[in-house]
């Protein structure tokens, strides 16, 4: 099937290491941010979200950090596993809308 992220930046990590994926968002009026994981042949899968009144949010093995000053978002994955291999997209939503603006994406490759 078609591959996602053929031309995207790639982050390669060893299994068990922590991964950090970064994203610069575009609009200072955005107040809601989401990280999605997309495996080849599938639609994006919600991972974690954060609102602009927070600067950190933790989930299971994942943490999202938001720096509104420099319009930067990061996704940290602890103890990265082979199943984490995928393309990761950040997305932003303007205040009071559900329309998402997606970032360019990063391909995460996990080696044993």
């Amino acid at each position, binding site marked *: *099937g*078609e*591959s*996602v*992220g*053929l*031309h*995207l930046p790639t982050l390669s990590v060893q299994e068990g290491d922590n991964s950090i994926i970064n994203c610069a968002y575009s609009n200072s009026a955005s107040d*809601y941010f*989401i990280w*999605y994981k997309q495996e080849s*042949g*599938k*639609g*994006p*899968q*919600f991972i974690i*979200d954060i609102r602009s009144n927070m600067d950190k949010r933790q989930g299971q093995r994942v943490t999202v950090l938001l720096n509104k000053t420099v319009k930067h978002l990061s996704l940290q994955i602890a103890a990265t596993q082979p199943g984490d291999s995928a393309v990761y*997209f950040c*997305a932003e939503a303007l205040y009071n809308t*559900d*329309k*998402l*603006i*997606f*970032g*360019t*994406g990063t391909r995460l490759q996990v080696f044993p």
Partner: protein
Amino acid sequence: SAVISQKPSRDICQRGTSLTIQCQVDSQVTMMFWYRQQPGQSLTLIATANQGSEATYESGFVIDKFPISRPNLTFSTLTVSNMSPEDSSIYLCSVAGGDEQFFGPGTRLTVL
């Protein structure tokens, strides 16, 4: 979370023809969206499918090229009209459920 299905999952079409993609959700939702993901690229919002009224298109997308129907709160269609090879993409529908937005598996379109 909402369960979203799309038909067809993939198709290969001749230029100049049209293809209608169906999106079915397992629960009633207010907001449905259509996105395009060109090969190796991120997702771009095409339009918001409004129930009972005309879809709202984003800049660069027009109704004549991408007519959308939304007859009820669980179903929508996107037609890609008068196709050219540049329309080869993955087309995804999504629904907003609370804060989260869920995506269908996508329809992989190749235009020859």
